[in-house]
C-alpha cells in the first residue's frame, strides 16, 4: 500500500479544497467500507485521504411532513434503518438497508458512500487486470466470466452498479445535493448516475472536487407502498444478482403513481420509466405486473453467461409490483 496523508475536513469548503482538481489524487473517506478495500487491493493510490467524518454537519436525518426526508451524506445505514420517521414514512428504505451487507458494515457505511461505491466487477477489482473501467484497453467480461455482469446499459464495459440503496431511492423520486467550488446544486438522483457511454471510468457526475452532501426524498402520497426484493447467492453479506424496487401509490386497485427501478442489472442503478408508464393509471393485476416487467427488460441484451438475469429480473420485478400493490405474489 502506498503512503498517503490523512486530513480532516471539518467543513465542506475545506473538503473541496483538499480534494483538488486532479482526478483520484485525493479521495474522500467516510465509512471506508469500500475505499479501504480499494486501497488494500492496490486499485487506487491517492496521495491524500480527505476525512469528511470530521464534519458533523453532514450527519443528520431530518423529516418534515411537507419537505419530506433529508439524509445527510454521513448518516450511517444503521441510523437510517432505525430512524422512526424512516420506518413510518419510508419503510421500504428500512427494509432495503436490512438486506445490505452485514450489520457490522451497516454500522459504519454511510448513505453518501453507498451511492458512490465503486463496482464489484471481479475484473475491475483484480489489480492484475487493466480493464476499461480502470482506463485500460479491454473489458474482460465480454469473452470471460460474465455471470454477474450487465444485461442493460452496457457499453464497452459491463459492470453492474452495486448500490442497494439507489433503486428504492430512484423509485421514491429522490434528489441528491452536490457541493462543489461553485456552491451547491440539487439534481434528481436519476441524473446523478452516468453510464459507460458517458464516461467509462466513472459511475456518477461528481467532479474530483465535488461531494454528495444530502439525499432528499419527497413525502410519499397516501396509499403508497414500496417493496425491495434482492436475489443474491448468499442470504447475508452478499452483493446482489438482481434486485427490484417498486413504489406504487394505489387508489382503489388503480395505480396513481409508480416508481420502478432495478439493481445489479446495469452499470447504473436502472430506473425504468417504461415500466412506470405501463403501471400508471392502470388497475394492477398479475398480467399488468408482467407487462410492466416485460417493458422494463425490453432492451435487455444478455451476454454469454448471464441470460438467466433477464427472466430473473422480470420475475422479481413482477413480484415486487404485486406486493407493492397489496396483491399476493
Amino acid at each position, binding site marked *: 500500500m502506498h503512503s498517503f496523508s490523512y486530513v480532516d475536513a471539518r467543513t465542506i469548503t475545506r473538503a473541496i479544497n483538499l480534494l483538488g482538481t486532479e482526478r483520484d489524487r485525493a479521495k474522500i473517506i467516510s465509512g471506508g467500507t469500500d475505499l479501504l478495500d480499494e486501497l488494500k487491493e492496490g486499485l487506487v493510490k491517492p496521495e491524500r485521504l480527505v476525512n469528511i467524518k470530521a464534519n458533523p454537519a453532514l450527519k443528520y436525518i431530518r423529516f418534515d411532513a411537507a419537505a419530506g426526508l433529508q439524509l445527510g451524506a454521513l448518516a450511517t445505514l444503521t441510523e437510517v434503518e432505525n430512524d422512526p420517521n424512516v420506518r413510518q414514512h419510508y419503510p421500504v428504505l428500512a427494509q432495503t438497508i436490512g438486506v445490505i451487507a452485514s450489520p457490522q458494515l451497516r454500522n459504519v457505511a454511510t448513505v453518501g458512500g453507498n451511492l458512490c461505491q465503486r463496482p464489484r466487477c471481479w475484473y475491475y477489482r483484480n489489480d492484475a*487486470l487493466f480493464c476499461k473501467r480502470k482506463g485500460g484497453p479491454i473489458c474482460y467480461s465480454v*469473452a*470471460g466470466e460474465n455471470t454477474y455482469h450487465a444485461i442493460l446499459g452496457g457499453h464497452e464495459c459491463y459492470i453492474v452498479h452495486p448500490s442497494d440503496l439507489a433503486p428504492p431511492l430512484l423509485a421514491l423520486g429522490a434528489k441528491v445535493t452536490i457541493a462543489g467550488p461553485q456552491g451547491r446544486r440539487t439534481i434528481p438522483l436519476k441524473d446523478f448516475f452516468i453510464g459507460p457511454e458517458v464516461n467509462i471510468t466513472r459511475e456518477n457526475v461528481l467532479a474530483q472536487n465535488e461531494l454528495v452532501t444530502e439525499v432528499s426524498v419527497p413525502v410519499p402520497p397516501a396509499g403508497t407502498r414500496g417493496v425491495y426484493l434482492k*436475489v443474491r447467492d448468499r442470504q447475508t*453479506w452478499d*452483493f446482489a444478482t438482481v434486485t427490484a424496487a417498486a413504489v406504487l401509490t394505489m387508489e382503489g386497485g388503480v395505480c396513481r403513481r409508480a416508481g420502478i427501478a432495478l439493481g445489479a442489472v446495469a452499470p447504473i442503478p436502472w430506473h425504468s420509466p417504461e415500466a412506470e408508464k405501463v403501471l400508471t393509471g392502470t388497475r394492477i393485476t398479475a398480467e399488468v405486473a408482467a407487462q410492466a416487467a416485460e417493458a422494463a427488460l425490453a432492451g435487455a441484451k444478455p*451476454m454469454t*453467461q448471464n441470460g438467466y438475469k433477464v427472466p*430473473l429480473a422480470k420475475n422479481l420485478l413482477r413480484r415486487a409490483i404485486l406486493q407493492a400493490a397489496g396483491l399476493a405474489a
Partner: protein
Amino acid sequence: MAKKKTIYEVDGVFHEAVVEVPANEPQAWGPDASMAVLGKPMPRVDGPDKVSGRAKYTYDINLPRMLWAKVLRSPHAHARIVSIDTSRAEALPGVKAVLTHKNAPDMAWPFHGQDGKLFNTTLRYSGEEVAVVAAVDEQIAADALELIAVEYEEMPFVLNPEKALESDAPKVRGESNLQGRTSVYSRGDVEKGLAEADFVVEQTFHSQVQVHACLEAHVSVAQWSGDKLIVWDSTQAVHPVREQLAQVLSIPIGKVRVICQYSGGGFGSKLWLNKHTVIAALLARQTGRPVKIAFDREEEAMTMGNRPSNVMTVKAGCKRDGTLTALYLKSVGGVGAYPAGAGCGTPLREIYACPNVKTEESNVFIHADQARPHRAPGHVQGTFALEQVIDMLAEKCGMDPLEFRRKNYSSVDQTRNNIPYSAKGLDRCYSEGAAKFGWGERAGRRQQASQRAKKRGYGMATQIWGGGGGPPGYAIVKINFDGTANVLCGAQDIGTATRTSFLQVAAEELGMKPEQVTLAMGDTETCPYGPGSGGSRTVPSMAPAVRMAAADAKRQMLDLASRVMKLPAERLEAREGFIFDKENPSTRSPIRDITGKMRTEWESPQSQIIGQGFRGPNPDGVALNTWGAQFAEVEVDTETGEIRVLRIVAAHESGRIINPLTATSQIEGGVIQGIGFALFEQRVLNNATGRMVNANLRDYKLPSARDIPEIESVLVDIPDTKANSVAVKGLGEPPIIPTAAAIANAVYDAIGVRLTEAPMTPDRVLRALGKAPPARVRARGAPATTRPWEVVHA
C-alpha cells in the same frame, strides 16, 4: 518381537507396511464396556484458550528481530522467465534478502514430479513463485516486490481439462497433458450388465474447483539456533513436514523441530511441506534472523491447492425390481500444473452390490494451481454424480429411493475380493436417519409446503469412506508422583478436537479423571512420531497407541498398588481417580495415594512411571470403512432460481463415538462445507490470463450463518471391535460427502428437473427449468487461447 504385514488406507489409497505386533495390546473395548470418560460429551480442553485468545496459532508467533517475507508471483498462466532484476528491491532500505532461481539452492521439489524445482524458470500457473523478499516488516517486503523487474516470455495455456486432452492443446509438461495413464477398474462385464438391464440411465455431471478456504491461511515461521532449525508451521502433519524439511535441506531429522499447536483449518491443503516453509528456512539461515511468511487471502486461494474439477459420465442399469446390473463411470479431472489425484470413482465401485462395474478415470494437467486432497477427495463429486443416478434408476423402477438403496446393499467389499466389512452400520444410518427426518411422511409435507412459485423437495444420499487408520503412530504416558499424568502423542489437533479425544482415551484407560491428565501433541521435539492428519485417520491410528501407552503405564501403577494395598495386581482396577479391589469395590484408594509411594515401595525407586504405546497392525481379511446417510429438505424458488436448504439430517457410523459433542461438531462442519460445495463455492479463472478472479471471501462464497439450516446429527455408535482396541474409525471426512448429492436429489424432488452441475446456482436452476437461455460459453469451456479483443460481443 513378532512382526507382520498389514494394510492401511489413506484417502482411498491402500498402503502396505510391516509392523510390530503388540505383545500387550489391550482387548478392544466392546459395546458393553462400562465407560467413565469415553462416550461422554466433553467440551474441548483447549476451548477456553481458543475463545480467550490465549491460544497461539502459527500466525501469532512473533520473534525478536523477525523478518517478514513476501512472494512475487507469476502474473501469467504459462511463461518463461527471460530475465529478472532484483537490484532495486535489494537497495530498498529494510530489505535483508531477495531469493530467486538465480541465487536459491538448485533444489528439486519432490511434490512437483520429476522436473520440479524450488524456483522454476518455466512458470505453469498464475501465482507460481518467482521471487521472495525478506524485510524488516511486511509492508517493506510488499513494496520491494514492486521493484523487481521480470521479463516474461508468455506462452499459450489451457485451463479446461477436456480441452487439454485435445491434440493441439498447449502442453503443461512433456508430450501429453494426460497424467500417467487413464486408470481403469473393471469387474464383471459392464456391457453385458447394461444389456441385461430393464432400465438404463446415462448422465454427465460437472463439478467445480473448490478451494479449501482455511480461515487461517498458510503461514510459517523459521528460526535457526546454530545448526538446529525450529519451524512453526500451520500444518496438518508436523512429523512428515519435519522429515521432508530435513530431506530437502539435507540436514539431520534430529536437527529439525516442527511445531503446530493450533490450526485454523487445513481440510487437506496442509498435509505436506510447502515451498514457502523451505524458503523461510533458507532466508532465516541467510540473514541470521527468524523469518515469517504469511499468505494473504488471494495467495491462499490461488496457490495452496483445491478440490479438482471433474466431468463425470455415469451409465447405469437395473432390473425392473431394482437390482443393479451395471455401473459405469468415465471421469476427467483437472489436477493443475503438477501431479495430483483427481479420481472420483470409489463410491461407484464400492457402495452398492453390483456384479458389473467399470470406471475409467483420467487426470489431466492444466495451467492452474496444483490440486490437493480436499476433505474426502473424489468422494464429494463422485457421490454427487452416483447418488443422482441411483435416484434416476429408482424413479424408473417406481421405487422409493431409500428402498432402492437397501435393495442393493452390499455386506462385502467387492473391490477387495469380497472380504467382509469389519462393521457396517449403514442400515442403521438409513433407518435412524429416515426416522428422524420423517422420510415416510414427505409426500404429504411436500404438497402442504409447496406454494405457487416455491417448491418443497426431499432427497437423500449415501456415504462411504475409509477411515480405518493404521500404523505408524506412537504415544508415551507418564504418571507423576502426585497422581497426575502427561500424555505425549504423535500427530496434531487440526481443529477436530483430537486433543480432547485422546485425553479421554488416556483418562479412561488410566482410570483417572480427565482433569488429572494433560496431553501434548503437535510438537516433533517433545512428542513421538505420528501421522499427518488426513484421510480421517488421526483418531483410529493414534487412539489405540495412546490407549496402549496408558495401559502400559497402568500395569506399572497397579503393580505399585498391589504392593501398597497388599492385593494381587490382577484384582485391582483403576477408575475415576481411584484404584479399587474388583472383588470388593469398597476397598479403594485414591490414585495419588498409590503413586505417592513410587519412590518408596519399589525395590528400585521411581519418580515417574513411563508407559509406551504404538499402533499395531490392522486386522486381516476385513475392510475398514465408515458409513452414513444424509437427508435434505429444500425449497426452490422457480422464479428466481434460489435454493434454500431448510434441514439436513446426517446419520453417520464411524465406530465408537469417543465424544458425542465434538463428533457432532465434525458432522455440522462437514455438512456446512458440503452446502458450500452444493450451492456456492467455485473457483473462477479468467480465461484471458488464467488468473483467479474470485480469490477473496467476497466473491468466493462460503456459506454464511443464514445459509446454514438446521442440522440434526444422528450418531450411530457401533464400537468396531475388529478394527482396533478403541473400536473407533475416523469421522473427519464422512459428513461432507453426501450433502451435495442429498440436496441435488431434493431439488429434483421439488422441481422435477436434474441439476447436473455443482454448484447449483440460481442461473443453473433457471436454465434447468428452461426459463433461461443456455450459457453460450461454458464457464469452464472457453478456449484458453481466446483473447477478449478477438471476440465480437453479440
